[in-house]
């Protein structure tokens, strides 16, 4: 086998192997976006109960409030690194509003995630302790959600 054809066969086999890997990567990226959006939906689902109580639209119930807040705290423990893979920004993919700045140098997304974790912990501690304590924790939680969305989410079209 000539040197040239050897190179060609390596290149060819590499291409054959590479194609399914790329397709698999694409699937993993799409699954990651789906997973994090599902996580957001579940946050909103639990917040719906807490917020409804805070607004006086749902009668306050300490046990139910506590369960919803604990649910949020559990959600916050999910491994974020698998759901926020590089290459899942809104320039690389269509079905996400996540800005590339999340992964760019100087991104403070980690600090914002920590602040969110602290706000969820505060809500977990407050929700079962009476309506006023729940209401007082809403602002901090809203601020933590908002600060990340403001910096790292593209506006709706």
């Amino acid at each position, binding site marked *: 086998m000539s040197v040239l054809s050897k190179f060609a066969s390596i290149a060819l086999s590499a291409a054959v192997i590479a194609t399914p890997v790329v397709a698999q990567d694409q699937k993993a990226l799409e699954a990651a976006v789906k997973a994090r959006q599902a996580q957001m939906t579940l946050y909103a*689902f639990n917040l*719906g109960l807490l917020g409804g109580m805070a*607004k*006086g639209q749902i009668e306050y119930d300490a046990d139910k409030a506590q369960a919803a807040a604990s649910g949020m705290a559990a959600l916050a423990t999910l491994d974020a690194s698998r759901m926020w893979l590089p290459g899942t920004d809104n320039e690389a993919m269509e079905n996400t509003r996540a800005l590339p700045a999340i992964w760019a140098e100087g991104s403070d997304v980690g600090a914002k995630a920590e602040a969110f974790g602290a706000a969820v912990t505060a809500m977990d501690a407050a929700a079962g302790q009476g309506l006023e304590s729940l209401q007082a924790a*809403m*602002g901090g939680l*809203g601020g933590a959600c*908002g600060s990340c969305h403001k910096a790292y989410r593209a506006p709706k079209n």
Partner: protein
Amino acid sequence: MRKVIRGFLGLGLICAAAGLWITAPRTIDADTLDGLVGNAEHGAQVFWTGGCASCHAPPTGETDEVMLLTGGKAFVTDFGTFFAPNITSDPNHGLGSWSLTEFANAMLAGVSPSGKHYYPAFPYTSYARLNDQDIVDLWAFMRTLPPSDQASKPHDVSFPFSIRRGLGLWKQLFAHPESVVSADLTPDQQRGRYLVEGPGHCGECHSPRNVLGGIDYARWLAGAPNPSGQGTIPNITPGALDWSESDIAEYLSSGFTPEYDSAGGEMAEVVENTARLPQSDRDAIAAYLKAVPAVTNK
């Protein structure tokens, strides 16, 4: 023939004089604020209602710098690019050497200490509705803010909008300090009207404008294209906004929509301001928004 020419000349002079008179910057009476004592603590509330920091904070938007109002943020419009000026207490580059009357003229009449018209990117058309005590309190608060010697950037505005004098005519046509909603309102709704139409200046973005940039008061708060060019700013009259009063008040406090998404775009910054208001003021804003004439978008 000579008579006719003289007549034309005379008419021209009258028009020019009328033009000068119409476009001349008008200021408030010097004694309007006499006897009022500023309360800086309440002034802080006026400051957050007015959203001053949202425009005048440095463009980097670092939260710890939010009170160093060096300006510099760019506002790209159809008329040119405006840069928010330095409004710190620095005597040379900020407002440090201004008198209370000069500050009141800027806020209420859109006129600078040197007697020039400000461009209405500075929302004095709304601020003109502030009451005297709030002006005095706000001034007391502004004087407590740290100075910065960063020079203000000049606006980049093209002809003919570069002639500030023309803004006198614009003000005659479009600046109306009286209340927009004139229906019978409860005291709570009246408070909301003051906050929304005055310091909150909500109508500046949420109302459509005509080609000259004047607010279309017949479609008050009925939504408008986003001046940044991206998307639209929503209709918040009862013709489109079906949120309950408590939904609106919660949104202005935590930023959560009734679907528990969070406020986006410029509104995220507005919520950072309204979150600092007393709950009674957020409730008042919500009550007013329910009393605004419903407008539907085609």
